[in-house]
């Protein structure tokens, strides 16, 4: 059971990197994107469905591996940077067409996307006990992979280019490495099996709904005109 839930945790974190990776990549690319309306329009319908994977990661961490939750407080500054950047990125998307100038929010989205990447670098490097400069470098690597992924996604969505699956797999690598490295420690810190049983019984019936909703988003917004809400 603990291994199953570690699998869930890993799947959600990897899913977050693959999916939110292209949103953040497109955000990073904004300053050098000519048609920013279309770029943001392309990721728009996916953002809400993508970012929520990380919220689910936090939920699984609390529910199935509460003893591991101290990774958050042990990497306090990185988590604060992650959250503030995430919040600003989202605000940029919601407010861009509606408040002040678009350029202001577009820069905010780009910088905040960078902030999220750097925070991930610091956080993941912190898990392995690496130094801050190493963490920042790791963050830049993440940003570079996300940019690659974001470009591929835009190409696929807007001009019908090849699929972003390969770049998505690449974007997940930075999360995969620490997951493999910490797997043993995480599993050893799982909640008692009675808890995991309860969680499993509660969540299992919803798995088809969860998967169905995500697939629906891709089927509905994978092609066709680019919507213009964000």
């Amino acid at each position, binding site marked *: 059971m603990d291994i199953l839930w570690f699998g869930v945790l890993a799947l959600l974190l990897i899913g977050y990197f693959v999916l939110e990776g292209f949103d953040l990549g497109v955000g990073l690319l904004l300053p050098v994107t000519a048609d920013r309306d279309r770029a943001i329009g392309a990721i728009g319908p996916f953002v809400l469905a993508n970012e929520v994977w990380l919220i689910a990661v936090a939920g699984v961490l609390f529910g199935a591996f509460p003893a591991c939750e101290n990774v958050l407080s042990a990497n306090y500054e990185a*988590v604060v940077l992650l959250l503030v950047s995430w919040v600003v990125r989202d605000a940029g998307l919601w407010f861009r067409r509606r408040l002040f100038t678009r350029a202001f929010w577009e820069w905010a989205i780009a910088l905040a996307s960078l902030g999220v990447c750097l925070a991930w670098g610091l956080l993941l490097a912190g898990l392995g006990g690496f130094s801050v400069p190493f963490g920042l470098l790791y963050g830049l690597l993440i940003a570079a992979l996300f940019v690659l992924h974001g470009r591929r996604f835009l190409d696929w969505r807007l001009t019908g280019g090849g699929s972003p699956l390969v770049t998505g797999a690449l974007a997940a690598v930075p999360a995969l490495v620490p997951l493999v490295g910490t797997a043993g420690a995480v599993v050893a810190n799982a909640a008692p099996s009675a808890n995991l049983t309860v969680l499993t019984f509660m969540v299992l019936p919803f798995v088809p709904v969860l998967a169905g909703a995500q697939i629906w988003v891709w089927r509905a917004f994978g092609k066709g005109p680019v919507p213009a809400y964000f």
Partner: protein
Amino acid sequence: MDVLDLARLQFAVTGSLHFLFVVLTLGLAPLVAIMHTRYARTGSTLDERATRFWGQIYVTNYALGIVTGIVMEFQFGLSWSGLTHYAGDVFGAPLALETLIAFFLESTFLGLWIFGWHRLPTWLHLATIWLVTITAYASAFWIMVANSFLQHPAGSVRDGEVLRLDDFGALLTNPSLSMALPHVLSAGLTVGGFVVMSASAYHLFRRTPDQELFSRSLRMGIWTSFAGTMMVVGFGFAQFGPVTSVQPDKFADRPLAAFGLGMMILIGHLLQLIALALVIVVKWAPRWRFLHPLIVLVTPLPFIAAILGWIAREEGRQPWMIWERLKVADAITPGLTGGQITLSFVGFVGVLTLLAVADYVLIVRVVRRGAHEVALGENPAPAPALTF
């Protein structure tokens, strides 16, 4: 202020900001879903405009609900790791279920609803807003389960230095939950009803176009406020039984909690009177212009009552994090430094407050602009002509 005070203030401020937006989400979601249902059945432009107008307000409000929620979710791990250390095996379960089987779906379905205009088939599109509503209520349920556990640690046993989950069912039938959950949900309806009423009153007073649309929604707002206030007061008094059974001296020597409680009740009765009076004259209310500014004026009251309610509930729990099990002072992350908590305080409280103000400015702007200029569900721009 020391580290503990700052961490508590940070939680109180971000939590209150979060709830200001959440309480309106809870109230507006079913109303927007009902309007959308009407639109799906009649296909009339009037119903479409009403759905899009109130939907735009719902969505704008939701933006801040989600970003403040993100911060709430992680704050437990950042500043209150003592809570997880002591009771993570119990407290973590409802939080995990909230994220996995409620919020995850809510966010996904909301994306489908926002971007699904002119794209999803009518009835499937309608289904998404009902799913958003159901999952929003499910979210409220799980969060209230978690909060009720702090008020009364049902379903858990002491095992050495920590609490263990003993009976999951008892978490769900916690006496601290049974009346509090319907009280919160009716608070949402009250807030939603008053907001719909007041935005409609504004347009009726200004004699803007769309008088028919706003006459209708004024009536809907009045009926919702009426139902909401009746239930919020009913379930409010019904809470005293369970609360005094598990936290007997809760309001006895905690002046701030008692103040919150008293003011909430006062405002509650006032709102109930207002809603009762309006429901009697509901037929004529759209035409009675003198009423409209008064309706606009009372809009903040239900929000204030809702925050006072939380002050009563949470201040009344002090100094306990988990009633008679774990003190707040022992729940703070060990070794949390002044620098760290100042950093997160400035980051979270500062940024979220600014964004909350900006969001309210936007909501007011959406309201004032009226139902003829709504971004949500706009017809997509025609595909750009090919240029050579």
